[in-house]
């Protein structure tokens, strides 16, 4: 199979997966117990049964789930329309887009830092195996990986706001709301610092541990011994021979993690009152906002699938064996 066929097959499979996800999502949310109208209006208001019925008709919930609601939804999606959120009364695509960048900014930054630091630390620990550096890095990573997200977030929030005066909530200060982010960069940086630090610490451990074990395995290979025997420097051995092979498991991990980036980090977003996709997913679920839920899960599914495709493609570049298989 040549490279083009391999990619085409991957894309075809991805499209089928998306279609299956769409159908499953539709069914999944509708078998949830409860009444979306009730979820939208809550328990504390004075809404008559007639008004609730009017809302139900407006949402199309008075029609049978199958075929009416199902084909209505598919028809809308085919026209590129994700519908209007019931609880937020805004087009779903607009809502998703507005939160997407916030989340990509936070998680992206945290991931990039965690990848760079984690890989570097793992490489170092593997290379300096059984030294104090290795033990120290390993202990730190294990702790970082095991710490509950919520707990670390709260601790850093309390420490950061008390000792360094860092903000406790939001993406920018309330007074900077609505301004283009580029004009309020210092404020943005202050707000991003603690959530990013939390994310970096949490992900760093995972990358470090995988990288360390991967590099240890590679370093025990015969060709590394050969390279050393040829008189190459430590650095050359590590860079030219070990790293490329050791990166394969990391690429998988990065792709998987990045795919889930858009699902946000519900815990971190909640601790730091950060307006991202993770929190949106949670709200949509609580409010049983079907259009928003379907849109959000479509976005999540598509990004995970795309991330996997990218990983598959990268394999072709990194590992010639994939091509031949």
């Amino acid at each position, binding site marked *: 199979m040549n490279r083009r066929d391999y990619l085409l097959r991957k894309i075809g499979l991805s499209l089928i997966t998306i279609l299956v996800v769409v159908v499953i999502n539709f069914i999944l949310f509708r078998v949830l117990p409860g009444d979306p109208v*009730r979820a939208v209006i809550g328990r504390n208001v004075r809404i008559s049964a007639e008004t609730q019925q009017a809302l139900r008709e407006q949402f199309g919930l008075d029609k049978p789930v199958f075929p009416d609601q199902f084909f209505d939804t598919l028809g809308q999606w085919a026209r590129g329309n994700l519908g209007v959120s019931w609880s937020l009364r805004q087009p779903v695509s607009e809502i998703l887009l507005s939160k997407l960048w916030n989340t990509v900014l936070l998680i992206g930054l945290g991931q990039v830092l965690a990848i760079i630091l984690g890989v570097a630390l793992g490489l170092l620990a593997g290379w300096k195996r059984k030294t104090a550096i290795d033990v120290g890095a390993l202990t730190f990573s294990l702790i970082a990986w095991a710490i509950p997200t919520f707990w670390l977030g709260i601790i850093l929030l309390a420490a950061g706001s008390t000792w360094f005066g860092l903000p406790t909530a939001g993406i920018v200060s309330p007074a900077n709301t609505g301004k283009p982010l580029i004009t309020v960069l210092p404020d943005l940086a202050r707000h991003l610092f603690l959530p990013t630090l939390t994310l970096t610490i949490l992900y760093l451990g995972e990358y470090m541990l995988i990288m360390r074990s991967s590099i240890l395995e590679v370093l025990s290979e015969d060709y590394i011994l050969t390279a050393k025997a040829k008189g190459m420097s430590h650095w050359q051995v590590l860079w030219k021979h070990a790293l490329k092979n050791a990166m394969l498991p990391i690429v998988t991990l990065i792709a998987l993690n990045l795919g889930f980036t858009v699902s946000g980090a519900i815990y971190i977003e909640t601790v730091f009152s950060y307006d991202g996709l993770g929190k949106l997913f949670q709200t949509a679920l609580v409010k049983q906002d079907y259009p928003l839920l379907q849109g959000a899960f479509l976005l999540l599914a598509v990004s995970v699938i795309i991330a996997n495709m990218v990983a598959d493609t990268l394999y072709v570049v990194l590992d010639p064996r994939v091509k031949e298989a």
Partner: protein
Amino acid sequence: MRLFKFLSAFVAIAVLLTACGGQGTTTPIVPVTDATKAPPPAELAILHFGWLGKPDTLNPAYAFLTESYTVFDLIYTPLTTESPDGTYVGGLAKDWSVAADNMTWTFNLKDGIKWHNGEDLKAEQVAWSINAVMADPDGWAALSGYISGFTEVTAPDDKTVQIVTEYPIANMEYRVSFLYAVYPPDFESFATPEDLQNFSNFEAIGTGMFKMNTFDKDTGVLILDANKDYFDGSPKIDQIIFQTFDNSDAMIQALKVGEIDLVNEVPASAFVTVQGYEGVTATASDGRYFNELIVNTVDPNNDPAPTGNPALADPVVREAIALSINKQDIVDIVLQGLATPGASIVPPTLGGGFWYSPNIKDVAFDTAKAGSMLEAAGYVPGDDGVRVKGDLRLEFRLQFPSDNPVYPRIADMMANWFDEAGMKAIPEAVDSDSLIAATTPAGDYDLVIWGWGPDPDTDFILSVMTTDQFVDGGWSDSGYHNPEYDQFYLDQQQAVDKTERQKIVWTMQEMVYNDRPYIVLYYEKLLQAYRSDRFTGFIESPLGIEIGLSLLNVEPVK
């Protein structure tokens, strides 16, 4: 060593960031939202308000969350408003009267009321606002409940609004306190109910003490500027900034470091800690939220047939259940004293205590008495200790919504007390949507622990017990059906004489207390806190800090 360097680098960056940005408490914030609004002068008195929610919309036609109404009360003015003692005082209205037939209400407006854009308010605009709700109740879903029974609203002159009703309406003052005067040009052009509901109204024009500056729906940041032309005196602060927190620990921390000045809802678990903060005053008020044990009272002939334990129909069993709940222990142990044991579905704070029946004397906790009562009624202990009488067995499902932090503990305690009396309760957490589906109108439960936040007027919480409400979309969950009660409910709606209405309301509470479709457990306290080292002049009432009045009155500490 490297690890140390890595951490030191982070600390260094943190210090740098601290240095490069101003913090709310020390540097005045100069908000600029768009080019058309001039930046206010530097020394602004800004009050930062922290809360866990945010308005769902600023459109009164389709707002369901309490937060929205907090904001409406600041930017809009209805004809009347509730005062801290539970009575109603004039908002837009200077005074009002009702004709001898009790069906024509005349409201005289105050002088000098201006819209936020500087135009004078006219009575016909107030009439227009109420007529809009009457003309499109589907569109004005959130307010349509307040206009039932209205036939005509007119403005005979610029200063008078007249409401004619189909039958006498007892709680007119309360009803009009939710019918905000909206600026007609903002709401005139909607063709369908959906168009109206989709309108965000982020540039709301009202007549209230604060005017809109900015609302960011995504983050919940809401900035209001003082209305210096407010007809009842200008606020002493210049601006309020509402900030939404998704997590109560972060909100409390923000109060501690002075990022926010007022917290409307302090979690009970943090209350003692907050009391200890320097420069912070924390208050616990009675509020009007109550929690109850719902007893399945659904008519056995209901369609679908209820699945509740038939023994619950026996008044002796109900009384035994009531005797087997130690409300004081629940308050002291689970709620750390931040509640009061309850008895009536009408909380003592409603209307300043006017509606709470003094005739209700709660039974004292006594499981031995419960046991002997059951014994006398023929319920004898079975092999496993659970009492039985013929086919009846005193074993109950005890469900509660899973999102509540204290209910699991209460359910466990109840199960132990029930055990002492020879009954069995099986606690089970259920998500609230499933619980709504199980209660109304399925009647598929035995006992449920839940809570209500009643409206300021008693009408709503009394309606919860009417037979009509036990339908899909209705609010009755107990399935209480008592034709006599239903008649009283209609009577109190039309009893314009307050004392006469009070008498009916008392009787109704007593009926609910004695029949026990609900066993009211406790009234939750409202916990609030503010930075008393920065602002002074908060107005407290038995219902807590009055947000509207306080924000009109507070000023920075000099």
